[in-house]
């Protein structure tokens, strides 16, 4: 393959102009193989070194960083969610406890107030019944006093009536018993 590229190209141009025998199909022109192989070797080795040393670790790092960030964010979100769940639970427990306490305080107060009211009522009733008894007693004494006065007046009136009718003064004891009998009757 002593034929050089320049010649090959020249030959191609020449045959094209001639329209005579065909130039070799370019992919099968053996004199171009060495140049292409050398270029391909350099290019491939360069690409391999760039890929393995620089490009792929760089992209791997980027992807890993992203994955770690996402993982970290998710973990953080999970932690926050757990925290909020715990807080909610604590709040609910607190609320339930407070409600129970409020109920207890309410019941206690109600009972205390009921008891106080009951005591008050009893004392009042007692006082009233004492007063009532006193009043009844007063009424009874007043009535008996009044009754004895009435009896005296009746005896006096009967004595005076008998004296007027008979002119004799009746025995006071008889008058009294007669008044007594009539009052009973």
């Amino acid at each position, binding site marked *: 393959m002593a034929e050089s590229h*320049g010649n090959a190209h020249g030959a191609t141009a020449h045959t094209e102009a001639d329209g005579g025998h065909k130039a070799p199909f*370019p992919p099968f022109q053996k004199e171009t193989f060495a*140049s*292409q192989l*050398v270029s391909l070797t350099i290019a*491939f080795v360069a*690409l391999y070194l760039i890929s*393995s040393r620089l490009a792929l670790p*760089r992209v791997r790092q980027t992807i890993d960083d992203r994955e770690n960030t996402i993982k970290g964010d998710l973990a953080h979100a999970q932690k926050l969610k757990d925290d909020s769940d715990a807080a909610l639970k604590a709040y609910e427990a607190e609320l339930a406890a407070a409600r129970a306490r409020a109920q207890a305080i309410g019941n206690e107060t109600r009972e205390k107030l009921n008891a106080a009211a009951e005591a008050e009522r009893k004392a009042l009733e007692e006082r009233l019944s004492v007063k009532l008894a006193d009043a009844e007693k007063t009424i009874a004494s007043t009535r008996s006093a009044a009754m004895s006065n009435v009896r005296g007046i009746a005896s006096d009136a009967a004595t005076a009536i008998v004296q007027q009718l008979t002119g004799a003064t009746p025995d006071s004891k008889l008058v009294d018993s007669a008044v007594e009998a009539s009052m009973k009757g």
Partner: protein
Amino acid sequence: MDPIHQFNIEPIFTIGHIGGQEIAFTNSSAYMFLAVALTSLLMLGTGRRLVPGRMQSIAEISYEFVADTIRTTAGKEGMKFFPFVFSIFMLVTVSNLVGIIPYTFTISSHIIVTAALAFLVFFTVLIYGFYKNGLRFFKLFVPSGIPVVILPLVVTIEVISFLSRPVSHSVRLFANMLAGHITLKVFASFVTMLGAMGIVGVFGAVLPLALVVALTALELLVAFLQAYVFTILTCIYINDAIHPGH
């Protein structure tokens, strides 16, 4: 007009000689280094933000895509070859995609390039297979559970299929890219030919133009798909080196 012209190797300057053979920096070399440069730019020039932008997403998707391909075909141990497979994938993908742009050169439309990559994979598998497994690597050619009577036949077939791997591996990519670009060029040249024929031709050229657009979309798919096929075959062959027992 010549659909083959796009595959011409144009020397830009001469680097030196090896055994009487001229080593030149060619348009092919330029596109190889362009692919390397674009890959480096994509992987190194994009941001490292927590929420990736477009280019950073492409870089990370490329990374994950190749990593997943290796993991699913060759397992976790295959990740040792991640930079190797990634380099192959990016070189082929980027150069194929660049090749879709009109007036560019497609390096994988040259059999020498795809063959070099295929043999690189082939020898990597061979050397690593023997280094890792020793003589047990030969188990690759002896499927278990085969009756002794037909074993020689099966082993022969396995050996032939193993040896023909670099051929199918390289020709698949080369032929796809070559055929696709020739088709594109042929239909594109119909457009210019009809367009030069006056008013009727201009209207007639609409059909091949639409075809060129559709074919370009198809070639975009093929460019990526063939790069993926090349990569996944590489992974499957590497899996054989790691786990030679069927």
